[in-house]
């Protein structure tokens, strides 16, 4: 079982590490770094959607909380970046717990509504608390430092790329272990049939809350990394539209597949860059993709691929039957 996980994992890690050997353009590396942040968020969201069976429409808020907490603690109060990152993750985790606890106790999709409201409140907060966050024009009260590891300062796109994707690979490994652990089986049981899972003694509400908290912590981590890369935060990237974008990425990759989440994040970050001429059309493209996948293949591209393979082998089986008969 474990071998089945590790082989694709190692191949993927090698590809990721080899990319900077071939791509030297800081611009393209920048796009891939962005995809790395989104992969972190989407992996968490994929656990929430695919395994706990809940939608979160507020993950951009946790992304933003991470970014702003890092910016304010390091830039304004002179904290060590890593400590600030940890503090940001704790803040996001606690807030996620406060939202998740009551809304996940209820049956149904109340989490979607609660997170939608929460996301808007956080966005308004970023815009309105000008003395703390700098308001709509962004944080300018202090200088956000680059991250450092020992004596090494992560100050160019190449180093950022390696750091970001090292963290993505680490979290990917953690997630693969989670879904193949007792917790993962419990979550899948919840997704398949909540009543049955509860009858079997799975503490459904508690598991769902913890997975939601975990996903918020991932998003916060991505936000902190983002702040220390761009060295600037403004409310723009943390608006509700981006929460929907993250959900779209997860759905494109196929809910409940950690690999799918990474693939969806990569695809939907790189695709719009290749279609730069159509920048204004982004909103329509995302909407169209989301609608199409929901209508025709609710398993996502990966699920669709699996269906296609099943159909192929079904065809081959039939041919064989004909030949044998």
């Amino acid at each position, binding site marked *: 079982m474990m071998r089945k996980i590790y082989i694709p994992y190692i191949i993927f890690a090698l590809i990721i590490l080899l990319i900077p050997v071939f791509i030297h353009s800081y611009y393209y590396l920048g796009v891939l770094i962005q995809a790395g942040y989104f992969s972190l968020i989407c992996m968490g969201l994929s656990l929430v959607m695919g395994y706990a069976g809940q939608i979160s429409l507020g993950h951009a808020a946790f992304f933003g909380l991470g970014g702003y907490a890092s910016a304010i603690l390091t830039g304004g109060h002179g904290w060590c970046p890593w400590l600030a990152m940890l503090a940001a993750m704790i803040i996001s985790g606690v807030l996620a717990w406060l939202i998740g606890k009551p809304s996940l106790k209820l049956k*149904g999709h109340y989490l979607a*509504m609660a997170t*939608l409201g929460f996301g808007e409140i956080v966005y308004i907060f970023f815009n*309105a608390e000008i003395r703390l966050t700098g308001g709509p024009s962004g944080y300018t009260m202090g200088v956000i430092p680059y991250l450092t590891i020992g004596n090494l300062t992560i100050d160019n796109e190449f180093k950022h790329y390696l750091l970001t994707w090292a963290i993505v690979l680490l979290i990917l490994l953690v997630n693969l272990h989670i879904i193949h652990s007792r917790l993962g089986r419990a979550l899948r049981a919840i997704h398949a049939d909540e009543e049955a899972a509860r009858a079997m003694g799975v503490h459904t509400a508690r598991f769902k809350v913890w997975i939601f908290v975990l996903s918020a912590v991932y998003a916060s981590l991505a936000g902190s990394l983002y702040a220390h890369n761009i060295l600037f935060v403004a409310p723009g990237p943390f608006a509700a539209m981006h929460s929907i974008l993250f959900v779209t990425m997860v759905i494109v990759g196929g809910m409940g597949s950690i690999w799918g989440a990474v693939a969806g994040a990569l695809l939907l970050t790189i695709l719009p860059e290749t279609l730069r001429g159509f920048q*204004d059309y982004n909103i329509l493209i995302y909407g169209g993709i989301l*609608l199409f996948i929901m*209508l025709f293949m609710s398993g996502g591209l990966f699920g669709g691929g699996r269906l296609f393979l099943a159909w192929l082998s079904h065809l081959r089986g039939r041919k064989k039957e004909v030949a044998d008969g």
Partner: protein
Amino acid sequence: MGSIYALAALGFNIIYNATGIVNLAQGEFVMLGGMFMVLFGGTLGVPLGFAIIASVFVVTLIGIIFERTCINTLKNPTVMVLVMITVAASIILKGVTMFLAGKEIHTMEYFSGGHGTVPLWGGKIPTQTFWVLGTLAVVVSALVIFFNFTLAGKAMRACAFDRTAARLMGIPARRMVLLSFGLSSAISALAGAVIMPISMVDYQSGAMFGIKGFGAAILGGLGHNPGAVAAGLILGILESLSAGYISSHYKDALPLLILLIVLFIKPSGLFGSEAAGRLKKF
């Protein structure tokens, strides 16, 4: 403003009762109502009455097309798929509006001409407020008559109560879903058309209408129509008060905060019954 939230909340309830889904594109229909109002009434210079009718008609048509193409074609959808489809629809409607109407904020004169106000209790009330309140009154009475005295209205109530039983009684449940989408988008469009002169509308303002309307629907108890109207008005008043007394930045946050608090403390809403809340699928 409260009346608009009340109308949007009614729109949510009608679809929710018929299908059990929350239509996250509801706010976009309000926005579209406003946009078409500007188009017909402002740009094309169609007389007021016709402009209202035309914008409501067009948006209703969009709502019906949406139901026919996206909701009705699904064979065995899960609630999550349905919710995501409404999210996708809202993005697409937003995008198309952005292209056709541009990114700028649209404004319009009050229906009674100019930007007149009427002095009342020491304050000044824009004349448009009376149009909005009047619309709410008309819609509510029309809905009361529809749900209590017509066959289609009674059938819709039966579907909301127990869909399987209603179908066994020979009520075409699927057609009721279509009807509910049409009715709901018509109400939302009307709300958008009358609010247009007071609150400026751009392609992004649908989301706020939607989420506040949903807040009102939750506060009043999801699926509970009189509750929705009362809760919408309460939200509107609280919002204006908070803009005056706390901070105008946070006036948009207050209805959302109330939405969260209600979800946490009493998810069945102020007026909904505990039992009805538990029976529902969503």
